[in-house]
């Protein structure tokens, strides 16, 4: 089997740095509000009329705000494994950006392994594949050694 290319399932939303991938956001140069997904047109803060933004890499660690799982296969456009393997999902609060970002928990992590407030870090894992490419997405992985 030949080596497949690693491709972002949603281009431009995260770096493909294998060691420490980061979500790509933006920050208003005037009011300093952060945005994820990256947004660079018109600041959404109603008190700010800025149209200039800096691209920023969001914190790669956060704390679990809440979590759940998907016991049954989600419908398309999700590409579900066959046979289906349930996966867990977390909403993670980034302290610096004061933003909550949704994402699957890393494969193998179940709802029994996590609690609200746990530290997690961003990883990239396969979402689906075709003949040429492995399409990866961000997921949250509990930080080893952190209190559970």
């Amino acid at each position, binding site marked *: 089997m030949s080596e497949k290319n690693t491709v972002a399932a949603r281009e431009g939303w995260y770096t493909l740095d294998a060691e420490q991938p980061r979500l790509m956001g933006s920050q208003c140069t005037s009011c300093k509000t952060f945005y994820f997904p990256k947004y660079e047109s018109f600041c959404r*803060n109603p008190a700010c009329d800025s149209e200039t933004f800096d691209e920023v890499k969001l914190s790669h660690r956060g704390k679990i705000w809440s979590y759940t799982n998907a016991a049954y296969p989600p419908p398309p456009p999700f590409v579900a494994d066959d046979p289906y393997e349930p996966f867990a999902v977390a909403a993670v609060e980034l302290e610096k950006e004061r933003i909550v970002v949704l994402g699957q928990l890393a494969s193998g992590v179940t709802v029994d392994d996590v609690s609200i407030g746990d530290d997690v870090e961003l990883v990239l894992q396969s979402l689906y594949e075709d003949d040429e490419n492995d399409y990866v997405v961000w997921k949250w992985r509990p930080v080893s050694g952190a209190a559970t």
Partner: protein
Amino acid sequence: MSHQVAILGVGMHPWGKWGRNFVDYGVKAARDALADAGVPWADIDFVAGANTMRCGYPGYVSGATFAQALGWSGARIASCYAACASGSQALDTARAQILAGLADVVLVVGADTTPKGFLAPQKGDRPDDPDWLRFRLHGATNPVYFALHARRRIELYGTTDEDIAEVRVKNGKNGLHNPYARYRKEFTLEEVLESPVVSDPLRLYEICATSDGGAAIVVASMDYAKRLQKKPVTIEAISTITPTFPSTQLEMPDLATDSAASVPAPEMNFQPAIISAAYSEAGIGPDDLSLAEVYDLSTSMELDWYESLQLCPAGDGQKLLRDGDTYIGGRIPVNASGGLSCFGEAVPAQALAQVCELTWQLRGEAGERQVENATHGITANVGLFGHGSSVIVKR
């Protein structure tokens, strides 16, 4: 200036999985509402339709679709889409026409035919549509969002699995007596707790299904109404507000919240703000309410609404339930209709169905599920993409 309009007639098609064209459900509901009002179709000045995104082009132009099906009469129309809040937006459009003096009597209709299973986004690749992306990238179905909030509730407020299941038991008792409900069956706590987990901590019987159904309301100016009814039920408020920046509650279909790093989060979250705006418009408060119809997409969400409605302090929702306050016969019955637990959601019809139930209750026509001496009722609901929906009615 009074902002009152009168509800002259209400009608519904029973909820279920009938597999027919959504237009049929809407027309049946509309005919029932017209008959209930005693207003001939030819007298309707304006038709406000609540759209469905699942039934092709006719669903996007529902005002015209229902007007044609009832027989073109030259009436003016509007077609409204606001996800689960579509019905309230259509009702608000009808009210605005009347209060502006542009129409005397208006028909509002919403109906849907839904597929089996999870509600899914529209087909086709749309990498800039958050509703498509949440499914594509993270398999985040609606129950995933409901469950994130339910888990948070358990953690913050000490709500138990039994509390979340008990809401279904209560609603099952109520829906048993509703001829329009799809599920007319009582559940024991054990049956609910033994149903399979869909998205932890929520179980199958704690998450609302998707249904076919239709609801319609005839609304009129107070002057027009006085010719037909001595004391009609009136609409006192319709809150269709949007969130305030930064919105820090994770809401469907977004993959992230707004950032509160530079502008602090508003004092009130979106849900309580919707209700607060409705109270303020109607000039009443929670103590004036006789009953409430709230969106129990999950049974845990019903407990959240108790707090947003200010029926109890934040975190005490389950106490209200355990004390029996929200049962029929209790201090403030919630979802006397059986709620979405017993209906399953028919998106564009649901917010109207809530108002139909309140109207029957306020008229004393709700049969075995009647709330005694009901004078004020409120509906509570949110449509995804930031649509508030709360209607206050009075007798």
